[in-house]
């Protein structure tokens, strides 16, 4: 009997870590399987864009293998980067996005702080209201907004329509509500004792915000910044409606309106422009990702 038991125990010892880690191994395998699947799914378009951007127009229109470049050329890049028009789009996009991020932060941070911390009558309703405004789609808003800005233009005499800076007034309607909403969440997660301690230490509300809340909620702030920048950078409908002159266009609208002439698609340059346009958000993500993930509140209170 005893030998039998030992024999039985023998092979089972090969599984070193028990069933828990067997489950874990399988969970990992499935994770990797799906990760690879998603990576292929999401990376295929940019890779296709890269391949196409390296081809000449002749090669694109020739029925060769679309996944291979036979005569690689940088001519698309050279042409775009030496075109004042493209650089103008790039510049417009950059200035609009950066200023919108600044405007958004200047409004969202104090708004979120007030809604999260200063308990006043209706603050909770207001916080929900802020979020609800975000849920209204831009396709519903662009006509009334156009009317409003037209009226403002008529009354004040300041030209707004068909100027890049009109976007500085419009984009925050998208970015401010959402950024305020996520900042409320971050601020609310900061222990109440922290602002009470600051209050007793002699800080005003503004000092509490600038010297305690902003540094402590930095990951949240960065998340909001990334969001605001991405939304501004990628916005298509509003600039399409509000700007028409070539020198006023931002990148997404500029590429589609100038590189598609009637039914002639300049695919090589469209792909190059799109790739170059995707670069700034990518770079920003890469630099800020660590902050995005890091939790700075560790050690504030117990645990």
């Amino acid at each position, binding site marked *: 009997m005893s030998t039998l038991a030992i024999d039985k125990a023998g092979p089972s010892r090969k599984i070193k870590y028990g069933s828990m880690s067997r489950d874990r191994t399988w969970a990992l395998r499935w994770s990797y399987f799906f990760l690879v699947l998603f990576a292929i799914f999401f990376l295929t378009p940019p890779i296709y864009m890269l391949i196409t951007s390296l081809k000449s127009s002749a090669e694109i229109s020739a029925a060769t293998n679309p996944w291979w470049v036979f005569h690689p050329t940088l001519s698309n890049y050279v042409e775009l980067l030496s075109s004042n028009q493209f650089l103008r789009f790039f510049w417009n996009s950059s200035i609009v996005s950066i200023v919108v991020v600044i405007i958004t932060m200047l409004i969202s941070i104090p708004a979120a702080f007030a809604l999260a911390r200063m308990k006043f009558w209706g603050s909770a309703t207001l916080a929900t209201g802020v979020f609800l405004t975000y849920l209204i789609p831009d396709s519903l808003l662009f006509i009334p907004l156009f009317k409003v800005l037209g009226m403002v233009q008529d009354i004040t005499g300041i030209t707004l329509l068909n100027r890049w800076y009109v976007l500085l007034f419009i984009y925050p309607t998208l970015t401010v509500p959402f950024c305020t909403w996520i900042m409320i969440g971050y601020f609310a997660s900061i222990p109440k*004792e922290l602002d009470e*301690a600051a*209050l007793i230490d002699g800080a005003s509300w503004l000092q509490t915000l600038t010297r305690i809340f902003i540094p402590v909620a930095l990951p949240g702030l960065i998340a909001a910044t990334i969001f605001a920048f991405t939304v501004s950078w990628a916005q298509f409908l509003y600039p399409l409606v509000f700007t028409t002159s070539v020198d006023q266009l931002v990148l997404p609208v500029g590429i589609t309106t100038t590189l598609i002439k009637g039914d002639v698609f300049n695919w090589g340059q469209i792909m190059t422009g799109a790739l170059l346009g995707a670069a700034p958000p990518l770079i920003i993500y890469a630099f800020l990702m660590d902050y995005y993930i890091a939790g*700075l*509140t560790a*050690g504030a209170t117990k645990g």
Partner: protein
Amino acid sequence: MADVALRKVVKRYDDVEAVRGIDLDIADHEFIVLVGPSGCGKSTTLRMIAGLEDISDGDIMIGGDVVNDVPPKDRDIAMVFQNYALYPHMTVAENMSFGLRLKHYPKAEIKARVTEAARLLDITDLIDRKPKQLSGGQRQRVAMGRAIVRNPKVFLFDEPLSNLDAKLRVQMRIEIKKVHQKVRTTTVYVTHDQVEAMTLADRVVVMNKGKIEQIGTPNELYHKPATRFVAGFIGSPAMNFIPCRLEDAGGTLQIRLTDRIAFALPPARAARYNALPRTDKLLLGLRPEHLTESHAHLGPGVETFETVLDVTEPMGMETLVYFGLEGTPICGRVDPNAGAKDGAPMRLAMDLNNMHLLNEATGVVL
């Protein structure tokens, strides 16, 4: 430094009265502990003194000035929170000096004060660390340091040791006492731990249901509790309350616990309780240490009785014995060598010289 006074202070949240008209005078340099169960209003009281909660009614005075409408930063107080509330992005030194920097103190003075406080609290080596690099006890020291450097009129502590483990709590308790001996700042300290209250306080304020039950030195509260609540709250294990009544037997006043057990009261006690109506329902309050094993040389006023023990708890220096008297659970403290055993009969002695008599209906100690 300053004295603190509360005059008929009330705190109402909508319909609920969390604090119901408190009067309290705290002398300069005094260490006052507010103690009571959860929800008794002790933390609310402290937060009202700090200015973190508005006062619904009454007055709070610090150094003779009414501060009802003075914001926290102008009350010249410092507070230590239960969860430390250190600024996570600042070093220890920055945490401690934050208040001074806001008030634009000269750099040299800030440095001197931080160095002195760090030395006092033995955290000089930690001065450049961030809070997350510190242990719980160290964080609590930094929180105290942040209070000390401000050199405020009043220190407020809101359950500062509750997040620490038992051993560290005892150690920090002693530290707090040492710091107070050196700094001598008027201190209001809130805790739910009666041991902390007894060991730290010059005077303890026992609170219950938004009211002050009793104010007194730790010894007064222990030996002369005013109410059943105080008698039961202070002391561990808690005081026993045994239903009883008074009766006259042959010219002496005796206390009847059960049909079979009745003891003659010592003369001093008999004189004190003689005027009480014999029909009142009463409670005999007796601390476990006055319920010991019986032995040959018992003094006057000590009565013995036989009982069967339910459970014994050997603690090393003493053994706690638990038994029932007509359904009332009772705890006694006997010598570890007295031979107390679970389920065994034992003869116990009741020291009636240290008894308390309470009115069962009102809870007042008579």
